[in-house]
């Protein structure tokens, strides 16, 4: 089954390009550290998922590129074509002359309705190229105007036009020290709207990825390209083919559906965080060896202590011992910084993954009491190594990972809203104070729900 990627705005297009790059280069890599047959099987599954190989010599990415101004898309298209290994479909993009001006209302209320037909036409065409449609993956930032506003509108349209398809939004959170002054307004409006239409939101925070680049990848002068490459690696580690069932004979064909089924049992809880280890500069890979027990131990502690990467993990944080407190969803006996999960998914790629013991992730004390721990935890595996990492483990988690960041964004936005600053810029395009209040209410609800886990 195939995934159609929708790249929205400057951020969405820049990241989308890196994602296809990473996937393509991973697939071309013959050092899969597994049998030839396995490698071919992986390659075929990956290609079906992300590329179309009709009459063209190089694989064509299954993507629709959307932006309200032309510079980024034209750059993205030419960079891809220049690689010689893959490209975008020449017709599968839409841009205008003038951007959204970081104005969510402009993206949502003006550009959205105005260009709905053309955009949905392009999406329809890509969907039809798929033998079987696995669903949609949209990439956008929530700080700007196009990715955020137009992205929210397009997501709604996708939901209306394809009511039974899976819809995953990949959302980039801006630097908390400020990239766009109205970023918190745009974020609140985006998140509240996406929550209504999408199946889940997979989040990457610029601050976190920046730290990974600085401390793990040892990059001195970090550019957005560096940041986007780390994000692409993490996404690839989730979406490249895996076996989802024990003793499965072929690569799973429904990645988005499987993801939703394992991680989103309740529509009130849709925020997914992503962690991947190990991460290191490419030239260090040759000198490093990893052990599965070590990787699993670190990944589990990253989950429990809400650590963003494998350095600086707080090993003191432990889940509460079962039986020592009255089990209740409003239990106040859990240590405050312990990260409670609803559901987790661990993805293992590399040799000897059969031998890995994931029992520590099935510990009931990690989870809320609603789901059977057996159902709250899943693992996907493949022997085939990913992106030159001999062993790699990823965690996609529906937990309190994003509670604090979300609370911060809402708090700052509320603070600004109380002073009414910048509101005239939004009402100019049809988003009124009422709409803001609705969004705030919706997000306070999400915060409250995750807090009381």
């Amino acid at each position, binding site marked *: 089954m195939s995934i159609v990627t929708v790249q929205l705005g*400057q951020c969405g297009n*820049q990241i989308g390009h890196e994602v296809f790059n990473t996937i393509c280069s991973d697939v071309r890599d013959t050092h899969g550290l597994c049998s030839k047959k396995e490698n071919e099987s992986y390659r075929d599954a990956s290609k079906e998922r992300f590329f179309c190989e009709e009459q063209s010599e190089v694989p064509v990415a299954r993507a629709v590129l959307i932006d309200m*101004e*032309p*510079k*980024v898309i034209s*750059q993205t298209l030419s960079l891809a074509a220049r690689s010689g290994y893959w490209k975008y479909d020449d017709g599968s993009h839409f841009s205008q*002359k*003038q*951007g*959204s*001006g*970081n*104005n969510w209302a402009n993206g949502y209320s003006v550009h959205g309705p105005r260009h709905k037909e053309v955009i949905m036409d392009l999406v329809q065409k890509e969907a039809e190229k798929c033998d079987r449609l696995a669903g949609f993956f949209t990439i956008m930032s929530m700080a700007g*105007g196009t990715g955020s506003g137009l992205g929210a509108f397009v997501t709604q349209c996708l939901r209306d036009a394809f009511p039974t398809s899976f819809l995953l939004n990949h959302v980039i959170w801006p*630097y*908390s*020290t*400020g*990239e*766009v*002054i*109205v970023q918190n307004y745009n974020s609140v409006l985006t998140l509240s709207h996406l929550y209504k239409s999408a199946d889940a939101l997979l989040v990457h925070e610029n601050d976190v990825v*920046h730290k990974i*680049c*600085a401390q793990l990848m040892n*990059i001195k*002068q*970090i*550019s*957005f*390209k560096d*940041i986007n490459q780390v994000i692409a690696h993490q996404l690839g580690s989730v979406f490249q083919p895996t076996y989802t069932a024990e003793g499965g004979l072929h690569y799973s064909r429904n990645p988005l559906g499987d993801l939703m089924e394992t991680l989103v049992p309740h529509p009130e809880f849709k925020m997914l965080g992503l962690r991947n280890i190990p991460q290191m500069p490419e030239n260090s890979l040759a000198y490093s060896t990893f052990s599965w027990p070590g990787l699993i131990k670190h990944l589990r502690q990253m989950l429990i202590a809400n650590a963003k990467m494998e350095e600086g993990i707080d090993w003191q944080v432990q889940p509460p011992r079962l039986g020592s407190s009255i089990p209740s969803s409003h239990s106040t006996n859990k240590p405050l910084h312990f990260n409670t999960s609803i559901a987790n998914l661990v993805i293992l790629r590399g040799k000897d993954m059969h031998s890995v013991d994931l029992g520590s992730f099935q510990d009931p004390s990690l989870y809320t009491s609603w789901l059977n721990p057996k159902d709250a935890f899943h693992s996907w595996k493949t022997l085939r190594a990913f992106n030159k990492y001999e062993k790699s483990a990823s965690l996609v988690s529906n937990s309190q990972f994003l509670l604090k960041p979300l609370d911060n964004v*809402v*708090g*700052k936005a*509320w*603070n*600004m809203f*109380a*002073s*009414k*600053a*910048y509101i*005239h*810029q939004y009402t100019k395009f049809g988003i009124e104070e009422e709409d803001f209040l609705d969004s*705030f*209410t919706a997000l*306070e*609800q999400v*915060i*409250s729900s995750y807090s*009381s886990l």
Partner: protein
Amino acid sequence: MTQSVVVQVGQCGNQVGCRFWDLALREHANVNKKGIYDEALSSFFRNVDTRSGGDGPDIYKGKICSLKARALLIDMEEGVVNEILQGPLRDVFDSKQLITDVSGSGNNWAVGHKLYGSQYRENIVEKLRKAAEHCECLQCFFIIHSMGGGTGSGLGTFVLKLLEDEFPEVYRFVTSVYPSGEDDVITSPYNSVLAMKELNEHADCVLPIENESLFDIVNKIHQMANSGKLGSTVKQNSLITSSAGSAKTAQEKPFDAMNNILANLLLNLTSSARFEGSLNMDLNEITMNLVPFPRLHYLVSSLTPLYTLADVNVPSRRLDQMFSDAFSRDHQLIQADPKHSLYLACALLVRGNVQVSDLRRNIERLKPSLHFVSWNQEGWKTGLCSVPPVGHSHSLLALANNTCVKPTFIELKDRFMKLYKKKAHLHHYLHVDGMEQSCFSEAISSLSDLIEEYNELDATKGGPRTDPSRLKIVV
């Protein structure tokens, strides 16, 4: 890609404008080696086929034939415009873009605004329409003028109002040169305050400039370039005040160095809209992020570095110095000290070989020493453009919506009141048709209100922070 049209009004406006077009051509020539008319060029220039003699049709692609500036040159005296048309830039303009008269406005805002305004209204509208028609997607009008005289101030603000009426969807950025205390035009306070009312009501964004600041910067550079420090040779074409490498070959006039600074300001402001980068910052993003309330649209600007030394290696210390300088008092283009006043918002547009980590590092480093209003503690808008300005490997434009503009406005008000109390020179204004005493009282009232808004914000500075309580959800 969008287009912008420059409307230069009066002596100051046209002299600055002239430097702008010259340096714009220089910048594009530096980047565009193949002579192809590209989207970046189209933002300020038309490509015209002049082989058939007259004004041929616009050519949208392919080789550059003849570049024409998207501009309107307006002056009620002929001297300055004539000089431009006889100079090396004569082919960049055509006669249809000019509106001139003979006798000037006599440093009288009323003459410029009321008399010439009504007289030339239709002519101006027609020429503006023509300029707009040549644009595929017109985004912005840039007005360049001074506040103290008669034409730039009066007719310039008349055009501003006209633009709002005729092209309400197009942004209006105004670069206004404010008179200094020692201005030799006695009535400059009247002209400036009358013009301020128009700026308050009809401009989207105003970049106030003071000659004193430009003068100080020019002197500073002069001293640096002539200090003869061993091993530090300044790259001539990197000077923010220099015309080196441009079309201008004649003797540099005294205001040229100062006007080049303004030209560079406009080039840097529009660089991210014209050229690519990893984090684009378009003109509509500037108005969106830097104007929290409609009337508070005055932005203090600073450009760094003022020059680049000839040595190639730039350690990150020097890069950080560039950021520090942007906030220092002597790099601002008006007499103001943003560091000790209150920031409502701040934009940083970086050009050249600078990455996001450099930007983040410096924001974190400088933030503790700056005061931001309580509801905008992280009030930063950032942009990264890959193409540096001519002669530099990197540069920074900082735009601040900061209460430090208040002293400039207060001083203006004081100078106005000194004259107004005595009714000095008032008759020159009042006998112009359409001009009444109420124009004056409304103007000073508008300015007072604006000052009061800044006062109220200043009062919140350093006070205790009480965040408003959040919405409560019923569980």
